[in-house]
């Protein structure tokens, strides 16, 4: 999926795929935090404004 998005110029950092076991609550929270930070840094998806209409 990342490859398909990248092919058409959509940043792959916007899609995350992680394996987290049900017992790893802390890791889950950390990963979500990390993802939120990354997305904040990336800003809103530029696609929104690229659409012609």
């Amino acid at each position, binding site marked *: *999926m990342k*490859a*398909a*998005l990248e*092919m*058409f*110029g*959509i940043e792959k950092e916007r899609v995350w*795929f992680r*394996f987290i076991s049900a017992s790893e609550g802390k890791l889950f929270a950390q990963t979500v935090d990390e993802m939120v930070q990354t997305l904040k840094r990336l800003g809103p998806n*530029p*696609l*929104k*404004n*690229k*659409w*012609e*209409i």
Partner: protein
Amino acid sequence: MKHFLLDVDERGVNRTLASFLERLVSDGMAGALLVPKDTASGKAAVMTLIKSPGEIKNINPFAPVSPVNAARIVSDLTITGVPGEKVGVLLRSCETRALVELAKHNQANLENIIIMGMDCLGTLDPVDYSEVNDPGGNLAEEWMEVSAEGEYREEIRGKSIRRVCSACSHVEADHAALHLGWVGLGGKQILVSVGDEFTGWASSFLGEGSENVPEGRQQSLGAVRSRREENKRRLYDEFNDRTRSVESLLKEISRCIKCYNCRRVCPLCFCRECIFSTEIFRHEPDYYLSRAGRKGLMGLPADKLLFHLTRINHMGLSCVGCGQCESACPVKIPLGIIFKMAGERLQQIFDYVPGRSLEEDPPLTTYREHELEPR
């Protein structure tokens, strides 16, 4: 595979093949046939299921047109079970590969299906075919004779073969129990290549047969393949530039009218319920208004980019590059090349070639740890 030569008699290719296939039925090797046959007007060659041997005589097996990917038809015939008798289906490469993909995804049953393959050097858009074909004419024969002699052409009576066909190097059809070849044979003979189950039958009237294909055929096939690879590289370069950013991709698909024809004709878009036809994409009036409110306006129908990206993600790994999507597109979006190119890149990640083998698992149904390594 054992190879036999079938001489084209004075009645021409179609009648010669009709007699050959009639024999397949009268000798009990098949109970019915699914083969291309010209309609009475000559304006279309359609896949026809023939039960009565007497009806075989007007077939047009090598007609350079593929109005639908016939794998879909075989899927329709077998989706609810196994046919009560053997059905011989005559397919070109993109169709046998699509059929194998469908069988792997439980969308077709190959039991009691005899895959008969044929050489294909490309097909015309169905509209072009109906313009240049004449009722009872010999367009297929013309195309076959010129191509068979080694002269390379991408044009039939002034009409170009479809763009994806010009980039396709699959001349022979894979997975065939019985294959009809004509490239590199001078137009006066047909190469009948058969697997074990048909060797006895073929040698009963075609002589001894040989382990090797006639001299010249391999060279002709090689020449066609390298020309097609060259075309493909050129087209991929062009379309890579045309789709490498969201802006440029949008330029290509912005005229999409969301008719879903591409989805309807795609042999691998087989979901019984497509997400785009579900409640998920049926919205309340206020949803549209609030979405329009965000930018002040919104184009409709909405979500064209989302539709095409979703389709690439859903069937890209199985895309055989048959280009039916492009032929069916009323606004002429170059979908065939875009999907073939994107599909091949996705397939490379998993070292997967759709339609290559029945035993190879579709990549998304298996888990291999190394596939998850960051790339």
